C-alpha cells in the first residue's frame, strides 16, 4: 500500500525494511496505532451494517415463529456446522499468520494465510451447494418462493433474511479472501517484521469479523 517493495532493502535478519514513514506521522508506533484504530472503526461500521439484518431477523421471527422453525429445519445442519468449523479454523490460521509475520517468519505466515484462503474457498463451495439445494427446492425469497414444505405463513420472508444475511456474509468472505491473498503475496516478498506488520494485522482483523458474523448467523439460522 505504501512505497513499492522494490525500493526497499533486505535487512540481515531476512525481511525487507519497513516502508518510509508517511510525512505526517512522528513515530512508526503512532502510524501503526492509527492504522489499527482505523481498522477497528471500520469493523464498527461492519457490525452496524449487519445490525439491520439481525433486527429484521428477530422482527420477522416474532411474526412467523412457526415458519422460521420449519424453514430452519430444512437447512442442512451438517453443512452449516462444517462451515462453522472451517471458518473457526481459518480464523486460527490467520491469527497464527499474524503472529508469524510479526516475528519476521514471512514464509510461515504465507502458508498459513494460503491455508485460510483455501478454507474460505471451501466455505464458499459449501455455501454454493446449499444455495443450489434451495434453488432446486424453490426455497427462495419473496416472489420466487415456491417451496411447498413450509406450510405456515412467512416462508418467503425467512428466505429473504436467509439469502440476504448469508449473501452479504459471503460477499464479505470474498473480500476477506482477496485481502488475505494480497497480504500473502506480500508475505512471500518478505515484507513484514516486528517493525511493520499492519497489513497482516488489519486483513486478519477483517477476516475475524467475517468469522464473528457467522458465529451469530449459524445458531440463529440453523439451530434455533
Amino acid at each position, binding site marked *: 500500500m505504501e512505497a513499492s517493495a522494490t525500493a526497499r532493502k533486505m535487512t540481515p535478519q531476512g525481511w525487507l525494511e519497513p516502508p518510509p514513514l508517511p510525512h505526517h506521522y512522528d513515530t512508526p508506533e503512532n502510524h501503526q496505532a492509527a492504522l489499527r484504530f482505523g481498522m477497528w472503526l471500520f469493523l464498527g461500521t461492519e457490525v452496524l451494517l449487519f445490525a439491520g439484518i439481525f433486527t429484521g431477523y428477530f422482527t420477522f421471527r416474532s411474526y412467523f415463529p412457526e415458519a422460521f422453525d420449519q424453514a430452519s429445519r430444512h437447512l442442512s445442519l451438517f453443512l452449516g456446522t462444517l462451515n462453522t468449523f472451517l471458518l473457526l479454523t481459518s480464523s486460527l490460521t490467520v491469527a497464527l499468520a499474524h503472529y508469524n509475520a510479526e516475528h519476521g517468519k514471512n514464509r510461515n505466515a504465507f502458508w498459513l494465510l494460503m491455508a485460510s484462503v483455501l478454507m474460505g474457498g471451501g466455505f464458499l463451495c459449501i455455501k454454493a451447494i446449499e444455495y443450489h439445494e434451495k434453488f432446486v427446492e424453490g426455497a427462495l425469497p419473496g416472489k420466487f418462493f*415456491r417451496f*411447498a414444505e*413450509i*406450510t*405456515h*405463513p412467512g416462508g418467503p420472508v425467512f428466505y429473504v433474511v436467509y439469502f440476504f444475511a448469508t449473501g452479504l456474509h459471503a460477499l464479505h468472505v470474498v473480500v476477506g479472501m482477496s485481502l488475505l491473498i494480497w497480504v500473502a503475496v506480500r508475505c512471500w516478498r518478505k515484507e513484514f517484521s516486528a517493525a511493520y506488520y499492519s497489513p497482516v494485522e488489519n486483513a486478519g482483523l477483517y477476516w475475524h469479523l467475517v468469522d464473528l458474523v457467522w458465529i451469530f448467523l449459524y445458531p440463529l439460522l440453523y439451530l434455533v
Partner: protein
Amino acid sequence: MNELLRRMLFLPEQASTFAQDVDHLHYFVIIVTMVSSAAVGLVALGFFWKYRRRSEDQTTPFVAPTAIFEVLAVSVPLAFFLAWFAIGFRDFVKLSSPPPDAMDVYVMGKQWMWKFAYPDGPSSVGVLHVPANRPVRLLITSRDVIHSVFIPAFRVKMDAQPGRYTETWFTATKPGRYQILCTEYCGAQHSKMWGEVVVMAPEAFDEWIKEQQRGLVARADVLADESQVSIQGSLAQWGKQVAVAQGCLRCHNVSGTESATGPSWVDLYQQPTRLADGREIIADEAYLTESMMEPNVKIVAGYQPLMPNYQGKISGPEAAALVEYIKSLRSDRTQQATGGEE
C-alpha cells in the same frame, strides 16, 4: 383568547374533544418558542449594540460561566421540555387508547381514495358519516401503499399501513363537514386524495344508518339478481368471480400449497378435516356455507380465528356459487380451474 390565538396561528376549527387539549398545549409551546427565540435574538442584538467594537485595539476580559449559570442553562429548558412532553404524552396515550364503547368504522386507503365501512352496515367512498358526541374508532388499513388519514379539524392523524390495521379515535363535537387529507406521500394523485367527514347529530345519524342498511339489503338483492342473469357459464365460474371480488383469495389459496393464512380450497370439498377443538368433520356444503357466515365457530386445526363474518355481505346465491367453485377445485383439475391465478 382561544379563538384569537387559533386564528393567529391559522389553525383549523376545533371540532373534536381532542382538538381543544392539543391546541392549548400548542399555544403554550409556541408562545414559549416565540418568546425565547425573540429573546435570544434581542439579547444578541442588544449585546451587539452595547459591546460593538469601539476601537481596533480594544481588549476584552475573560468571562466564563458560573456554576449557577450552567445549572440553570440545563435545568430551565429541561423543565419546560419535560413538562411539555408529560402533557403531550398524556394526551397521546389518550389518543391511542380508544374507549371500549367506541363505534368502529373501517377505513381503507387506496390510490387515491378513501373507503369507509361500518361493521354491520353500509359503506361509502370518500365520505365518512359519524355521530357527534359519541366516540368513534377508526380501524385503518390500506390496499396498496402507505396513506395517512388526516382530519385537521379533529387534530387526528394515523397512517394507513397496507396489510395491517392501525387505530385511532375521536369524539366529534360539532355537526358539520370537515376535510380529510392524505398526508403520507402515495404517488401521482397524492395531493388529490381527499375525503370528507360528515358529523351528524346522534339521532340524525341513527336514522341515516338505518336507512343505509335498508338500502344496502335492497341493493344487494338487486345486484345478486342482476349477476345471476348476466352471468355467463357455470355457477362455479361465478363463484370464482365472487371469491375474487370478496377477497377470499387473499387468505385461501387455490394453487394447492399450504402457505396461506386460511386453509387451501383445493381438494377441500368432502375432505375429512380436523378442527382446532379436536373434532373431525367432513367439509361438505353445510360446513362450507357455515364457515362463510360464522367462520369462527369451527376453526380448522393449525389456523387462527381471523376470518371475518360474511353474514349479510354475500347473498344466498353467491354463497352457493362459492361452494360450487370450491367443489370444482380438485388438484387434478387445478390448472384449468384457477386459470389466471398464481
